[in-house]
């Protein structure tokens, strides 16, 4: 069953066009990676799906419903949550308050404070601290937990590995299994190609706002990916 579909998705920042006719399909329960160089339009794609950027209604279809015109807060309520690039925690809120912010979408489901603390036990010890006092990895866990608190059907992760040590990245990606185990569909945006491909079943490669390549991650042609990634 198709959960998310973009139809000829184009997105603009003012007069600047960042996406050109992107067609992406994500099935229920699937983990899909979107890779590409800086400026390829990966983040723009996620922001368009999450409603932070306005598009035509039919360009983004979620669970059969056109949502391209909806605002971000309406879309979270439908079950699309975002872990934004750079984590974007609320600096004047504690760790626990940041997590609780995820409940403003008022969606019921398997995730609550207790479950998030089980997934990230370290956060339970740190829950009273202000978010900026945490390490980068702990902040990323908080950002993932905050998104989970809205009990999403589709989780959009923007650059989970950004600025983190490899061992920390590994820890966070291991937790993805627990998340997908709940039946949550995941779209990963990454610059770390290997990490993204390891965690996903299929990938899309963007290049300068256009779709350059899409394939299952198993036995893909590495040369074709390099060509698509760099536009060779």
């Amino acid at each position, binding site marked *: 069953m198709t959960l998310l579909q973009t139809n000829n998705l184009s997105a603009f920042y003012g007069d600047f066009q960042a996406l050109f006719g992107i067609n992406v399909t994500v099935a229920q329960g699937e983990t899909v990676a979107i890779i590409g160089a800086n400026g390829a339009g990966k983040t723009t794609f996620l922001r368009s799906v999450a409603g932070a950027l306005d598009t035509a209604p039919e360009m983004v279809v979620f669970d059969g419903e056109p949502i391209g015109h909806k605002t*971000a807060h309406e879309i979270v309520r439908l079950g699309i949550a975002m872990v934004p690039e750079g984590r974007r925690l609320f600096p004047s*809120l504690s760790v626990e308050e940041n997590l609780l912010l995820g409940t403003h979408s008022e969606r019921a489901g398997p995730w609550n404070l207790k479950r998030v603390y089980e997934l990230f036990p370290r956060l339970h010890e740190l829950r009273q601290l202000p978010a900026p006092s945490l390490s980068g990895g702990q902040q990323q866990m908080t950002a993932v937990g*905050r998104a989970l608190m809205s009990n999403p059907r589709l989780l959009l992760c923007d650059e989970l590995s950004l600025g983190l040590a490899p061992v920390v990245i590994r820890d966070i990606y291991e937790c993805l299994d627990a998340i997908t185990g709940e039946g949550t569909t995941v779209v990963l945006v990454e610059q770390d190609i290997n990490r993204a491909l390891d965690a996903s079943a299929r990938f899309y490669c963007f290049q300068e706002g256009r779709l350059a390549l899409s394939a299952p991650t198993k036995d893909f042609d590495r040369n074709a990916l390099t060509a698509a990634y760099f536009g060779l």
Partner: protein
Amino acid sequence: MNWINILIQGGLLGGFYALFAIGLSMSFGIMRLVNIAHGDLIVLAAYVALLVTEGTGIDPFLSLVIVVPVMFVLGYALQRGILNMTLSGGLLPPLLVTFGISIIIQNGLLQAFGAYDHRLQVGAIETASLHLGENLSVGVFPLLVFAIAVLGIASLQLLFYRTRLGRAFRAVSDDADTAELMGIDNRKLYAVALGVAMIFVALAGVLFGIRTIFAPLSGPIRLILAFEAVIIGGLGSMWGTLLGGVILGLAQAVGAAIDPNWQILAGHLAFLAILIVRPSGLFPRTRD
């Protein structure tokens, strides 16, 4: 007048200025709205109270039962209907629009009530005082105003740090775009925020109308005092705003004790002095 007396009067006056400033501090803290019409809204609240007391014959204190909800709804509608449209374009559009609202309120009040002075009468409490010593007496009304300011700020702190709504206010103040991504309807939240700010505007307006005479053009000077209290205290800090009001009140009282002509000027000089020493105020909290 001995100095202890002067300092007590000045400090209590500060509670009054803090009350002027709370609403302004809130709307800047949460939605970065510099509300030029803030002083005029305080005066408007006083006129609403005047209508209520004259229309029903009830006590001005009791009129708050009507004035507070009226101002809440007005604030909600103002934000939802007009001010939300100005927020995406930087600091200038809300400045211009609230400046326009300020002029509309002033002239609307002139049209409706004339340029006369009005006052809200509460009887004996206006002049009652507590004798604390040989030469020391404290007015009951200023004391009451100070207590209301402290209680008001304390309840706002509870709202901000103990409730779901308060958490949303702080999150939106930190990062409005991300808050929207978490499912908060910023526009609705801003409307509630201005509504809550207007509860304090209503309180300030009624107490202002009891303390002194007011006229349609009394607003701008209230705005300046409120601004100074907010800036001295540091943007976004409610207790800082109270302290800012107290510093302003103390400076005015000391100035007035030296020479009555110096009262207002002394307050402004204290404000300038603090701006020079600490340009971002005493306890800045709001992040840009």
